[in-house]
Every structure is written in structure tokens, then in C-alpha cells.
């Protein structure tokens, strides 16, 4: 009670003063522009759209089902469905987005769009240095800006991408098998069957590190 508490405190700050020169445990500061910490694999910033293959327009996984648009809590996604259809990766004809825009000034990086997407089409990016001088146009990302190849997704989220790829390969195999058996049957019926199956073809595995299957479509 005679100042020893103060002295104890002074000793503590002195220990930290000297400790910060020697111990990385104490000096946690990172000098940002020069020094960077690699983002964690789970890190999420803003969503992007995954496409397979080279041509982004053809390989876009999104089928414009508009589930993410409905579920997005801050309503920052806008989708305009196409009139025509194009085949998806298993060959089933699907709609595709004419417009797909995300206002990332509104987006709150909650990842719900990723969770609800039954087609593994939307994923979270890890790029965060997105500041721009143009507040209105610059933060409104359109389809061209959003579409990124699967290779990029594999690069930023290797574990999640591997799971997704495996699941999709499985589906593709299933669809091919289906198509094979279908050749014996009537062509039209086979095509129909494949279409219905493909609709719920989304993964069913319980643990979903990046995405959650859409249960509803199975029922």
C-alpha cells in the first residue's frame, strides 16, 4: 500500500518495453503494406462466381435460380434470368444469369449466399484491397467482374475446392452412368430422368466446409 502496486505495474511495463524488442509473442504488430499475413483458408470477404473451363460465359455454374438473391440478408444481389437455356456441366439445359450484380458496398460478407447455393456457383473471395474512388460504380460488381475460374477458387480455398470438385466429379459420373443406362431406354424418357436427377444432384455429404447442400430440393 505504499506504492508497491505502482512499482509492480512499472516493472510490468518495463518488461513489456524490453520484451517487445525480443519477443515476437509480445510485438504482434504487422506493418501492413510491406508485411502481409497470408489469409486463412476460411477467410471470406466478398462473393464471386465460379466458372469451369476456359470460357467464363459457357462455364459459369450459376443457373440463375435466384435463391441467393432471396436469402441475401442485406439484399445486395441482383439477378436477371436468361430467356434461353444452355447446358451445364452435366449437360442438362439450364438458365443462366443475364445479369448478376453484387453491390459490395452493401454486402456484409456473411457467406449466406454460398451456403444456400445448390450449384456451388458462388464462393467467397479473399481479396480485400478493393478500395476505389468511385463510390457508386466502382463498388457495384457485374458479371464480368464477378466471374472467376475454378482454378482461382482452388488456389484460395484448396480444401473446400477439392471437396467441391470431388462432389461434382461424382455427380458427373452418376449423370454419365444415368445417360448410359438411358440409351437402352427411350431417348426422351432418359433425358427427362437425367434432368430430374441432376436437379438434386448437389452434394449430400454432411460436413460441408464451404457449402451446405440444399436439402429441400431432394425432397
Amino acid at each position, binding site marked *: *500500500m505504499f*506504492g*508497491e*502496486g*505502482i512499482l*509492480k*505495474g512499472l*516493472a*510490468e*511495463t518495463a518488461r*513489456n518495453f524490453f520484451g517487445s524488442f525480443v519477443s515476437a*509473442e*509480445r510485438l*504482434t504488430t504487422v506493418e501492413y503494406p510491406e508485411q502481409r499475413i497470408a489469409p*486463412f*483458408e*476460411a*477467410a*471470406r470477404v466478398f462473393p464471386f462466381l465460379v466458372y469451369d473451363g476456359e470460357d467464363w460465359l459457357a462455364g459459369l455454374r450459376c443457373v440463375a435460380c435466384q*435463391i441467393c438473391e432471396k*436469402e*441475401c*440478408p442485406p439484399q445486395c444481389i441482383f439477378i436477371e434470368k436468361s430467356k434461353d437455356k444452355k447446358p451445364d456441366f452435366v449437360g442438362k439445359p439450364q438458365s443462366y444469369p443475364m445479369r448478376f450484380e453484387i453491390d459490395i458496398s452493401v454486402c*456484409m*460478407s*456473411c*457467406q*449466406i449466399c454460398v*451456403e*444456400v447455393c445448390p450449384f456451388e456457383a458462388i464462393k*467467397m473471395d479473399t481479396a480485400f484491397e478493393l478500395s476505389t474512388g468511385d463510390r457508386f460504380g466502382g463498388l457495384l460488381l457485374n458479371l464480368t467482374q464477378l466471374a472467376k475460374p475454378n482454378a482461382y477458387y482452388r488456389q484460395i480455398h484448396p480444401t473446400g475446392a477439392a471437396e467441391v470438385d470431388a462432389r461434382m466429379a461424382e455427380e458427373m459420373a452418376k449423370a454419365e452412368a444415368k445417360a448410359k443406362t438411358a440409351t437402352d431406354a427411350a431417348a426422351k424418357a432418359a433425358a427427362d430422368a437425367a434432368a430430374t436427377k441432376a436437379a438434386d444432384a448437389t452434394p*449430400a*455429404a*454432411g*460436413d*460441408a*466446409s*464451404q457449402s*451446405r*447442400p*440444399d*436439402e*429441400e430440393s431432394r425432397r
Partner: protein
Amino acid sequence: MSESQSHSAAAGENPEGRKPGSQNLVSQRPESQKLEGWNRPARTEPEADGQLLEVSMGPHHPSTHGVFRMDVALDGERVIRLRPVFGYLHRNHEKLGEGQSYLSSMPYTDRLDYFCSLSNNWAYALAVEKLAGQQVPERAEYLRVILAELTRFQNHASSIGFLIQEMGASGTPLMYAFREREKILDLFEELTGARMMCNYMRFGGCRVDASPAWLEKARARVAALPGFVDEFERLLATNEILMARCQGVGILRPELAVNAGVTGPMLRASGVGYDIRKVDGYGIYNRFSFRVPLGEHGDVYDRFMVRLLEMRESVKILEQALKEIPAGPVMDPRLKLRNFRPKPGEAYGRIEAPKGELGFYLISDGGPNPYRYRVRPPSLINLTILEDMCLGHSVADVVLISGSVDIVLGEVDR
């Protein structure tokens, strides 16, 4: 403008035929109204000649946590009247919750008490689970406990830091707290993808599983936490200046604390042994052995020390949980999140959040959106007795007392 004037004016109006929007804003407030027992202390009203200094502390005063205002009337430096003013951060969270699906509300709960997003997640998930009668897998329960206790630890550490900061310690304890918090936030980011807005828990489990590597890292970090608490204790607990400033300041009697709905460390600092982790035993808290520290005087120092001791107990829980965590799924795969429509009914679920009792009250009408979505914010309700604690103290103590309540304006205003 004196108060009686406005009341008589308001009383003169006829509240006839009101439709929404036409109602007088100040209701009749009979001056003779007697509150039994729990009367707010009699305000020594200002002398007629206006000797009082009226200071508006906030909404951008350096010591208010966020945009919060206290209208303080001072006689010299002594507080004669104090009125908290809220709403600068009001986003009508509850209205938002009623306008969207159960799942979509989850990320919004992160933004209530942005220091403890995982606790908020849990409270909301708990309420929905009660409403829909869902079970949570074992592993998910453990993960929830681990994350909630890490959240509690970092919240208490930084709240102590802010408290001492308000005492003028140029941020040193705050920086130490942030240094430690940084490590915990790293864990959060690695698991949930975000540092503060985690959006991790789901009704019926958790979003993703924790990898063994993450658990190992968490164990290592938790093992280092007691050292940090020791450092804090050496730096602060016996500091004479801190003791002189905090002891005997802002005393809250236990009876008033209970009656005013004060919860969390504030309540326990007043000597009331009420911890929802023990009382409700929600989740799997009854499996862990931990103690509930109690204060005796109910002053700022007790609140500070109770938080410090609770950090130690949190570490204890964390060690047990990280040791015993079983393997298994973190979420029942059959549960659906999208288009989730619980049966009509209502439920009130509450947890012991770091700041106190955080409750969610949900009414379902069978639709995809909750009919009523209510948050019981501990920060707001703990402020009920702010004036009672501050009267008669000096301005410097007001800052200290409001710091010891530990509020986050995101939660107060919602």
C-alpha cells in the same frame, strides 16, 4: 425548461382518437408517483438561480463507448442529474429480423454486440432451437462452449482495457488486451472466416467443423492465456491509484441490481451468485467444473476484479472443453436452414453473454419469417441504474462507472 411545465402541457392534451403517429410523445407523468422500494434516488434539484453546469457528454465525447450521450448536470464537479440518451445507432434490428427469414437474421446478430458475435449467434440459435425443438450434436455443443468462452475472455480483457483507458492510462492495458484478443480473433478467423462478424452458429449446430489442427492451435493459445491474466493482475490489481479510483465508486446494492434486471459481471460484482451458465445449464455447461466469482461491495473495482476472475474461470472451462471434445458431426445433415418454417408458437432463449443475460424472444406464426423477433440486450438494461450509481460522484467517476458497465452501443441501440 422545467419538467413540470412540459408535463402539465402534455396532460392537457386529449389522447382522443389516436391513430399511429398522432399520439403525444410524453405521457402523463404524475409527479407524486411513488415507486415502491426501488425508487430512483431523489434528485437534488438545481437551485433556482441556475448554478448548475449542464454538460452533454457525448455523442462524440472521447469516453463514451460509441455514440452514446449522457446529459449531466453538475454542481461543481458533483453529478446532480444524469440522463442517458440513446438511439444514435438505432437500426431497428428487431424490425429487420421480422422482415427476413430465420437464417438471414443470423449475420445480423453478429452486429449487436460486435465484440461478442459468437455469443450472440449462440443466443439466437438457442432461441430458434427452443422454438423448433431441435437437438444439437455433441461436438457442436463443445465448439459452441469453446467459442463462447474465448469470446468471453477477449471481451472481458478488452472491457477492462477500456475501463483503465478511461482512467487515463494511455491505453497500455487496452493494448495488452488487444494483443491477446488478436490471437483469439485469429482463431475465430481460421475457423469461421471472419474475425468479428463470425456468423458461425446455425440452429441445430455449427456451420463448419473445426479441424484437428485448429483445436491444437486453440489448445496452445489457451495454455498461454493464464500468463496474460497474471500480467494484467500484476499491472493493475494492486495499483494504488486504480484502487483509490475504483473502490467505493458506483456502488450498486444487490437488491437494486436484481430488481433493475442487471445481469452478468455487474450483478455478480454486487454479490448475487446468478450465472445463467449455472442456473439454466444451457448447452453442456453443467459438464464443466468452474466457479462463479462474486464481488462484495458492488463497486467499480469489484466489477473489474470479477471480470478478471471470470477470465480465469473461462480458461478453466476452455481447458476442459478442449480436452473432452468428442468426434462427430457438427450439424444434423437433415436439418434445413433455407425455407425453415417452425410451427406456430413462441420461445424465449437466453444465455450468459459476456455482458449479461442475452435473450432472444421469438414468436412464429408458421411462416418463414419470425412474427416477432426480440432481443433482450444486456447492455441496455444494465444502464437502467446508471444514474443511480453516478449521483453524487464527480464527472471523472461518471466516466469510470459507465465504463464499468461495459456497454456496446450496437447492442444498446440495436
